[in-house]
């Protein structure tokens, strides 16, 4: 089933590659209540147009994107909250539809990268600067120690 879906999505994608890019949301789709419409737009910007290359359904005029936009508005009119609308769409179209992936085991590395790199970098900077700050206090080498002994010994005499 999943394979079939992928294959059909690819096939449709090939057809719609040549579609114009503008004219996404149509005048007839807009909800009469501006507050609800605003919510619909915000949700739409987070949903991928499945037949396009890297476009949200809010930006795409592919027919499937239009269907999804109407679906989002239907769910909002049915008094779903934002999370419920997203759940509803994900249940039907899969995680692939989310432009901002959920925080899960499989996306752990994705979400943690900025934090890991930043803190790793900070640790490296601290480690790299510390020895240089103490450079004057570095332990003496064997040769230096021998020389020091020699000088001290000669002074004792």
């Amino acid at each position, binding site marked *: 089933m999943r394979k079939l879906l992928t294959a059909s999505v690819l096939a449709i994608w090939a057809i719609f590659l*040549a579609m114009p890019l*503008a004219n996404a949301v149509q*005048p007839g789709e807009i909800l009469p209540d501006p507050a609800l419409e605003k919510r619909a737009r915000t949700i739409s*910007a987070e949903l991928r147009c499945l037949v396009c*290359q890297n476009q949200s359904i809010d930006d795409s005029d592919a027919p499937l994107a239009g269907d999804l936009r109407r679906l989002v508005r239907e769910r909002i009119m049915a008094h779903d909250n934002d999370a419920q609308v997203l759940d509803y769409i994900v249940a039907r179209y899969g995680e692939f539809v989310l432009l901002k992936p959920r925080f899960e085991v499989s996306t752990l590395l994705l979400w943690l990268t*900025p934090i890991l790199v930043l803190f790793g970098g900070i640790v490296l900077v601290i480690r790299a600067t510390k020895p240089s700050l103490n450079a004057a206090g570095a332990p003496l080498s064997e040769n230096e120690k021998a020389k020091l002994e020699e000088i001290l010994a000669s002074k004792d005499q």
Partner: protein
Amino acid sequence: MIVELGHFALILALLVAVVQVVVPMFGAAVRDERMMRVAEPAALSQFLLIALAFLALMHAYVTSDFSVLNVAENSHSTKPLIYKMAGVWGNHEGSMLLWVLILALFGAAVAVFGNNLPPTLKARVLSVQASIAVAFLLFSLLTSNPFLRLDPAPSDGRGLNPILQDPALAFHPPFLYTGYVGFSIAFSFAIAALIEGRIDAAWARWVRPWTLAAWMFLTIGIAMGSWWAYYELGWGGWWFWDPVENASFMPWLAGTALLHSALVMEKREALKIWTVLLAILTFSLSLMGTFIVRSGVLTSVHSFAVDPARGVFILAILVLFTGGGLALFALRAKDMQAGGLFQPISREGSLVLNNLLLVTAAATVLVGTLYPMALEGLTGEKISVGPPFFNMTFGPLMIPLLIALPVGPLLAWKRGDFLGAMQRLSFAFLAALVTIVAAFAVEHRGPWLAPFGIALGVYVMAGAIIEWANRVKVGSASFEEVARRATNLPRSAYGTLFAHFGIGMLVVGIIATSAYREEHILAMKPGEKVAVGGFEVTFTGVERGRGPNYTEDIADFAVTRDGSPVTRLQPAKRLYDAPPQPTTEAGIHASWRGDLYVVIGDAQPGGGYAVRAYFNPLVRFIWLGALIMFLGGGISLSDRRLRIGAPSRTRQALPVPAE
């Protein structure tokens, strides 16, 4: 015949490049001057041969020689001349030819202008540069040959994708490539230095102009792409976090970090090892970008699996140069002496923070771009990583960077006076405060954070001016003294002023247009009006028209402000002849306040047309900011201290101070 000459020249260029890799590198190892000198004529002739090949392909395009497969697939006899020429790099094979042309151009420039380089370093740099050329010339000839013939020749070509038939886009690839291929020089210098096992402040001074030139062109190249998307794609978006955009943005972030760390290295001999690593990483990101865009992994993982030859080839190049570079780095970096010491609160410290944040940002974009492909490859699970992810992760990284930006240049090297810097910035804080109050007073819509974002941009702009004012002693010296200092101030200081001011403008533009954009989507019949961003827009009707290679529906809108006419906007819907593809042409009225942006859609069932009208406040600040950054790079590059060849002269002229 000319096509065959071009093909032959490209093969010859490959052979010359092989000689350029081997002979100077060996010569440098055995200190043979004559062998090292081979690098210069080789670099020049390699460039000339590739240029010849490039011109041969362009000739085929201009004369519409459809017996050449590449021309037949990507050009059309009715296309305007400028797009026939630009068509050369509007396709995979031709763009790879442009890639190697620019690579060779940078090599030739080092050969010509690098007179002050020590002979062994110069020989090695040119040898490493040629090794990249060998890899990509082989790629071109073996997997992406633009000179293949077609028999029988078709009567006409298939045409260039019409949305690409646009002046900004036609000249966007050469700028972009000059940018990210230009970082190859920094890479070659880094590898050459690792081979030499010696690296010092002079190295940073030699690398910086090349990096700066690459950075400038990358900046303007990305800005042109964004500007094109804004007016051509028809909904006023200017950045989409598309993998193709990310491919050029990652080297930009790393390259910006490299410019700043090379500065520390040049002035203070600190961060040497890090700078070398960053030079390797920056060009690796350029290669990664080339892989992402050119391998086909983007369109789908499946198309990559079906025809993996190109993808695997570029991947091999990527692994070879990145892996080889990093391995050499791991072997040699330990031997290098760490440089000058500094306190955390100092110019060096602030530049370390700059590098930390920029590199984290680049890593975030890299992982976000590659994660879906990697995850699908490993587990088969399909996810999307799009704009909401990048806005959420990249945005917060930029905030501390922008806050710290004006502070850094006000701190002294080694040990800075933080409170003193804060005091000097008081005017910038005041400007930010005024902006916040003004923004809340003028705009009641939009998120409450937006005024703070705009204020951050204003603070950066003010900070750039304060840094300059501080250096020329505005306020504490006489007018003549200030004027004298202003003329004597090195050009690189003006470069910093422009670049930092440009960043501030860019931020203001991005936040203002994202937060306060006005949008109207409606069905309009002729005679109807809509009020947008202080304008009255009246729809007068739609007419059918005919262009050189398309038909179009042109709508007409009369725009008035307070009752007096301002302009007429004529957005259109076009249908191109070959290939038959529709495009939208937006009607845009630009002003300092912002852009009025009108797009015409389909005829509506109830009569009239779908119309979208936007007001994008201060949106021009985005590209104007980028343009100012580009100019800043240019001004800095004209500084005689940075100019190649100049440092040796000034060094001789100045008496050496007693230590």
